[in-house]
């Protein structure tokens, strides 16, 4: 059951990411990125991270991707054109990414036995209470600092995107 769900949603993730890479129009890339993020939320649920699965759907596939599609539509972004720089990127990009992938895969699979196996038991489900118990006791100061960070980011975004007169 776990393996079947992992294969389905992991396959959806990889398919969406490849679609992001291959599509020429940014709005298609944005929509395939939403697929990737939503299936990642399912994978978080499979790993027992309940709160993060909800936050992934709300923050990533909700807020951030809506912002992306909004900007794409606002700027009326069309198809990207092929230029000389993109040929250089093909020559350097695909082999580099392939080397990175094969290295990571080799390292992870050669230590496969040392990493455990994850099943579908609710012993390891981390709810909101377990997360907030740590977040609001040991990590209260970083949590409050991030709220200041968000405030500064809002102010910066408004200042940057404002029309100058």
């Amino acid at each position, binding site marked *: 059951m776990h393996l079947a769900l992992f294969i389905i949603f992991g396959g959806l993730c990889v398919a969406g990411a490849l679609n992001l890479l291959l599509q020429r129009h940014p709005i298609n890339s944005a929509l395939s990125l939403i697929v990737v993020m939503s299936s990642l939320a399912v994978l978080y649920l499979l790993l027992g*991270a309940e709160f993060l699965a909800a936050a992934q759907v709300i923050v990533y596939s909700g807020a951030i991707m809506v912002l992306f599609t909004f900007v794409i539509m606002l700027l009326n972004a069309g198809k990207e054109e092929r230029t000389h720089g993109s040929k250089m990127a093909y020559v350097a990009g695909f082999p580099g990414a392939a080397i990175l992938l094969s290295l990571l895969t080799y390292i992870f699979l050669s230590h496969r036995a040392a990493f455990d196996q994850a099943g579908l038991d609710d012993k390891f489900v981390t709810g909101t209470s377990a997360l907030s118990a740590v977040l609001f006791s040991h990590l209260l100061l970083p949590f409050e600092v991030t709220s200041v960070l968000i405030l500064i980011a809002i102010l910066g975004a408004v200042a940057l995107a404002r029309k100058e007169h």
Partner: protein
Amino acid sequence: MVPIAYYLVLSGILFSIGVAAFLIKRNIITVFMSIELMLNAVNLTFVAFSRYWSQAQYRLNPTNYLQVNGQIFVFFVMVVAAAEAAVGLAIIIAIFRARNTLNVDQIDLMKL
């Protein structure tokens, strides 16, 4: 049962696709989206290792074993990614106003 290494391999695949998209894509918005893809891949690694640590801890101490540090890292990454997306898209809007293009090959000078 799925080996946790498979989750790590999946996140490696997603990260490599993100790197390739970052290098190959010419539209500045798509380049920014591939950065988000890489952040998501790293988040999956954090969650998988958090699960692994909980399971390792369960064998040592079956009463108090849940380890949430990795998930808290993911929480902070999400917060920072939200802030980064807002500021980055505002910068993209400002660039588009100044240059009237979204192609990264034509945005290669600091001055206007």
